């Protein structure tokens, strides 16, 4: 069996497991709690062995899977994937984190009503993550990207009886879908401007512009859309505020998605397109600027949060913002190292977060006494009144939610509501109630 075949087969392990698990659940077979745990451990073990073996071989592999969506001579959707030792190492780290989280969740969600739902979504994540990491084609990347987004949103709304969970998951899906437009538009522009969606080819922008000089402007557009797509998952400005809301889900999913892997997919996406992005100086400046401003924002907001998961979420954004800056500075290996190191630290912190109060008072390893959070020295240079104002602004997230709700969403929705009323009046002859004066009886 060649390395190519081994790599291709490894992608099918999680999918095979997912199919089996789905069939059992649909068939309403009584499945023990230990079953998905064992199944996921098996899949993780198989993947660790495969990626470990391939990473040790130290060779890059390109695989094109059989024609999945194909009409002869008319249309083809190639499933192209590329394994590199660096990405393989990142995937190995991811698998170790998943293994830890599977074990943790087994106890954490024991006898919980949504136990199997959680593990099913976890399995979907397992199937989708390698598609994003190893995709050598924007279309394939989009499949994994979208599946991770949907599982993330469903896990935010995991506790279905809580209306807040629904609202927050809706907030998250709105951000995701809005930013996913970038990835889908990028894929479509790649087809239009370069007649390919292969990432390796798109990462040679100079050649592309030479081959298709009439579409030179679109190559810049492609770079911008890819960058835009990364903003949502990476919770960069101006799409940062959803991450605090995403903490509504169970802690293991918060750790996996917003502490470690999903939030890190933004920089991974940028990393995959680094040559394309850095070909344009304006894009490099934009990436560094967004990364730096998001880091500053996350740092200041984090300092004012009083909940453990909120602090960790903004800390994660802070680190991810640095990864984004590193991509902008052209530091390829640093980003991967940073991604892996950050994922391990943050998962540990998330999983310990529920014991924070206990640790604070009981654990001798932790600092005891009155909490002391000194302001950063830069802030201390400011006059006290300004320091207070900055604190209040940071506590309100610098009005980011207010901006989205009152400047973007509400005026837009108000306009649409007016249109809807006009439609109702025209189609049904309904009275324009909101504008009619209130009569005494109605009052």
């Amino acid at each position, binding site marked *: 069996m060649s390395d190519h075949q081994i790599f291709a087969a490894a992608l099918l392990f999680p999918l095979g497991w997912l199919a089996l698990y789905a069939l059992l659940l649909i068939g309403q077979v009584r499945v023990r709690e230990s079953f998905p745990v064992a199944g996921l451990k098996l899949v993780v073990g198989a993947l660790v062995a495969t990626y470990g073996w391939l990473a040790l071989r130290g060779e890059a592999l390109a695989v094109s899977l059989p*024609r*999945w*969506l*194909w*009409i*002869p001579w*008319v*249309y083809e*959707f190639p499933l192209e994937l590329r394994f590199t030792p660096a990405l393989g190492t990142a995937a190995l780290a991811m698998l170790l984190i998943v293994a830890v989280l599977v074990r943790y969740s087994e106890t954490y969600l024991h006898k919980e009503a949504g136990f199997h739902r959680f593990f099913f979504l976890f399995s979907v994540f397992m199937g989708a993550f390698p598609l994003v990491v190893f995709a050598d084609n924007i*279309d394939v990347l*989009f*499949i994994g990207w*979208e*599946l991770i987004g*949907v599982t993330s*949103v469903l896990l935010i*709304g995991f506790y*279905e*009886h*809580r*209306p807040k*969970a*629904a*609202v927050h*998951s*809706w907030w998250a*899906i*709105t951000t995701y*879908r*809005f930013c*996913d*437009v970038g990835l*889908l*538009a990028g894929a*479509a*522009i790649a*087809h*239009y401007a370069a007649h390919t969606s292969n990432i390796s080819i798109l990462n040679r922008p100079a050649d592309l512009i030479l081959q298709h000089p009439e579409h030179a402007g*679109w190559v810049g557009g492609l770079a911008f859309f890819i960058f835009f797509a990364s903003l949502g998952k990476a919770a960069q400005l101006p799409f940062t505020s959803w991450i605090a809301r995403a903490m509504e889900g169970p802690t293991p999913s918060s750790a996996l998605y917003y502490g470690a892997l999903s939030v890190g997919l933004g920089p991974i996406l940028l990393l995959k397109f680094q040559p394309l992005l850095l070909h344009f100086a304006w894009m490099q400046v934009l990436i560094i600027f967004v990364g730096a401003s998001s880091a500053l924002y996350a740092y200041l907001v984090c300092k004012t949060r009083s909940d453990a998961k909120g602090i960790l979420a903004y800390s994660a954004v802070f680190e991810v913002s640095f990864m984004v800056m590193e991509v902008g500075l052209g530091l390829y290996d640093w980003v991967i190292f940073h991604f892996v190191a950050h994922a391990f630290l943050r998962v540990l912190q998330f999983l310990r977060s529920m014991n924070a109060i206990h640790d604070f008072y009981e654990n001798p390893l932790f600092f005891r006494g009155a909490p002391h959070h000194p302001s950063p020295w830069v802030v201390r240079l400011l006059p006290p009144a300004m320091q207070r104002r900055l604190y209040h602004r940071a506590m309100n997230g610098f009005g980011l939610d207010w901006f989205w709700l009152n400047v973007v969403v509400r005026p837009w*929705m108000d306009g*649409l*509501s007016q*249109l*809807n009323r006009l*439609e*109702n009046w*025209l*189609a*049904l*002859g309904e009275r324009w109630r909101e504008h009619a004066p209130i009569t005494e009886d109605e009052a």
Partner: protein
Amino acid sequence: MIWGYTYDNLEFLIPWALLTLLCLYLYRSKGGKLLLILPAGLAAAVAVLKVWLHTRDVQDGVGPFFLLTLALLHLVIGMVLDARATSFASKASGLIGLVLHGFAYFTDNPFVFALFWVLSLLPMLTAFRGGHAHARLVFFGHHLVALAALLGALAVIQRVAPGFSDMRAVGTLPHVAETRWAAFLLVFACLVRQAMFPFHLWFKAAYKTRPFPLSIGFYVGNLGFILFIKLALPLLTLEARDLFPYAMACGVLSALYFANMALVQTRLRSVVFNVMLAQYATLYCGLETMTEFGRTGALFQFLTVGCCFTGLLSCLYLIEWEVGEVRTGRFHGLQAANPQLSLVFLLFSLAGMALPATMGFAGEDMIFHAVIERHPVVGIGLIVAAAINGIALFRVVCFLFRGTRDDVLDPTIDLSWWQKAALGVILAAMFLFGLFPSWLLQQVHTYV
């Protein structure tokens, strides 16, 4: 050929119509919900066979696809609603409407098509509730305009080519200025019939004032869409290629408009209907790309949208039957008592969002690529519309199934074996052909 029908098709259509009438008569006299399902089931089976057996030699055109979608819709509505759907008149209207649409799908004679275009409106007369004179006026006003445009176009075609009676021979029409006018009128008729922006008010008037399975059945009848494929599109290609960008602009504008309007609806059924309209508008853009894969994607997506919204609306109707009209005012928390229904609705919604591994993904992907190769800006507009559709559908899921359940107001909705089977088969098809789309795509492509 008789009246534009092949003998093969007449051999199916006439017995089917008689069987439908017989079933309705027996149902009226003896009852039995199976009788309501049988005609739609037969139509679906024949359509599947026609698609499967490649009956291109009998020149079916795209008829089987339309029949399949509409028959599936009726079949699922019949099975899922478990014969609960209002009065006998409404049930009879639905089934007779299906037969009339079926006759329209298979004819190649434009005048016979126009006849069934009018006849298919008649069952709707029975369904308007009292007190909605305004809605009735809007409904029939729009359809009169559409009919006038269709007849006007046919009159112009007769003027330039006396005796023209075969839609397949549209390529033989003389190249004169009048043909361009005919194309314009036909596109106009299609847009009105298909409720594209800004001619969509009749649809709103319809689904808000009548039993909505009937409305959806009528809409998914898609006579506007089939007229577009059979006559308007070839005529546009022949005489008025310069009108394509405008027609495509109309499609993308509709998609964006309906997707946005879905966000502000307070009735959940209105949200779903608006998303459905946005999806159908996307299909127009796919057809107008004039590429093989764009058209294939549009037809494939046509099946997908039909199946997906059949499922969504059936579930919604079932819920509204038990709970009353559901609005966005509160979270209904139906998940706790109805986990299966919740899962089914969620899966249909994900398919409606074109999630990878569902049928919607393949069709939408092809349409987007085809459109963007022609007009990148229009393509990005469609992508934005698709994104908003996803948000709107997820909002419906949240309002229906999330939150705390009110035990007094929200009863458990038990799904019978029939209902589970109907919804399960459609879901299985959506995921099976989503995971392995090539075979079905290749079948669809043979009809392009």
